[in-house]
């Protein structure tokens, strides 16, 4: 049985349909990358899983339970956390408070204690009492990942974690993702940076205009196939 599955997932913003029947599967311990151009529906897909956009219950299954109609807080308590696009740290909270708030709704034992987060991202420890707004973009992204990780989720959803960051920072963040996966957390990464996505993922899905245009293992897919599925031409 898949750990997380979407079945004919659709999503709407008012009258505008953003997703058209997306079928995806995430197995335990797996890292899956969702790639696609701007507006392909990648972030909407993650928001639908996280409960920020709700649809029919049977459109998202987690651990054998339909969760598509659950509220975001409930989805989080079940063990699915989201690193949102643009970091979205809480500006009135310090770095450590931003991390601690991550386990407000779910505080289960696991590999990701506060100390483990500081070991994963050593730069944060010295800034633990700083306002989160004073951090660099890379450090803010580390806090956003740590905040989603500190509740020891079973599935970590990452939305464009490389957006606007320097290549060296992106490399560090993706190295951290490898460690997160090694600790047993299943991961879904939404990315426009195809190289990074292919490097860390076991399987990829390519989205185009709200539909899944390609899926498979990175090693089984040719550059041309991905190009065609990504751009449509």
């Amino acid at each position, binding site marked *: 049985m898949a750990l997380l599955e979407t079945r004919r997932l659709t999503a709407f913003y008012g009258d505008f349909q953003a997703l058209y029947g997306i079928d995806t599967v995430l197995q335990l311990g797996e890292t899956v990358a969702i790639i696609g151009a701007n507006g392909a529906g990648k972030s909407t897909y993650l928001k639908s899983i996280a409960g*920020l956009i709700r649809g029919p219950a049977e459109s998202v299954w987690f651990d054998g339970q339909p969760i598509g109609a659950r509220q975001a*807080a409930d989805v989080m*308590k079940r063990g699915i956390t*989201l690193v949102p696009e643009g970091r979205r740290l809480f*500006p*009135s909270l310090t770095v450590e*408070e931003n991390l*601690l708030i991550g386990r407000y709704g*779910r505080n289960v034992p696991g590999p990701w204690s506060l100390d483990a987060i500081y070991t994963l991202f050593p730069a944060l420890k010295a800034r633990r009492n700083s306002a989160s707004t004073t951090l660099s973009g890379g450090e803010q992204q580390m806090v956003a990942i740590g905040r989603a990780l500190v509740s020891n989720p079973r599935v970590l959803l990452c939305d464009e974690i490389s957006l606007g960051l320097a290549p060296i920072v992106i490399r560090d963040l993706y190295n951290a993702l490898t460690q997160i996966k090694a600790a047993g957390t299943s991961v879904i990464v939404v990315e426009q940076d195809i190289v990074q996505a292919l490097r860390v993922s076991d399987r990829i899905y390519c989205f185009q205009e709200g539909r899944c245009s390609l899926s498979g293992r990175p090693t089984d897919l040719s550059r041309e196939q991905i190009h065609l599925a990504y751009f449509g031409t």
Partner: protein
Amino acid sequence: MTLWANALMEGVLLGGLYALFAAGLSLIFGIMRLVNLAHGDLIILAAFVVLSVAAWLNIDPFAATLAALPIMFLAGFALQYCILNRTLGRGLLPPLLVTFGLSIIIENGLLELYSADSRRLHGGSIETSSIALGHSIGIGVVPLLTLASAIVVILALNFIFYRTALGRAFRATADDLEISQLMGIDHPRIFSIAMGLAFVVITIAALYLGMRANFDPTIGPERLLYAFEAVIIGGLGSFWGTLVGGIIIGVAQTVGAQIDPEWQILAGHVAFLAVLVFRPRGLFPLPVD
């Protein structure tokens, strides 16, 4: 000189009462950006609750307030959970209209139940007790207790906000409602707890209002005005700012009254306008607002 010193002292102590009026309003606005137009009437409602509890149980107003606090917390929680949460997230107007309607309901309900007669909470000898400072300056014990209570309330609110997981949830919800849900924060419940806490502060304010002066069901809107002014002078969302704001209004009123008794209320409003002219965001605005 002594008269002026006395006026200044009275103003500072009166500021404690205004800070208590304002703290609950600031708490609610700070967390859910809800402007509670019923706040003044809720203070008067709480005063009548304390009055009734004191009469039923034949106890003094302090003990009656202690007994009323859990009831008022639950009332605030229920009001938010059942009614006010439904008005949030739909623009500024729905909460304004609903709390305005609530204020009318409370005022008329109290008139129906208790009539328009003025009431007072009788605390016995403590009401007339005072501490002498030198030969000619005396500080009333009740006003002093009011200021001390305001300070304790603000310390407690700051502790909850900045030292507890609940406070982190309050601040996170105020910062970003959507993302706070991803932390497992059940925001309707968080808002309801905040309103429950605001009702606790309202009840403490009601105790001192009722011991200091007569009250009747129609004086709520004026308390709301003082609370608003104290919050805005202090800076939205700053608890210590509400104390400073309350003291500024209090001192302005007593100094104004010292010049001419008819200037008392006007002087408070003029001080408020003067602060608005020079510091439109208040004296202690939060860096993140």
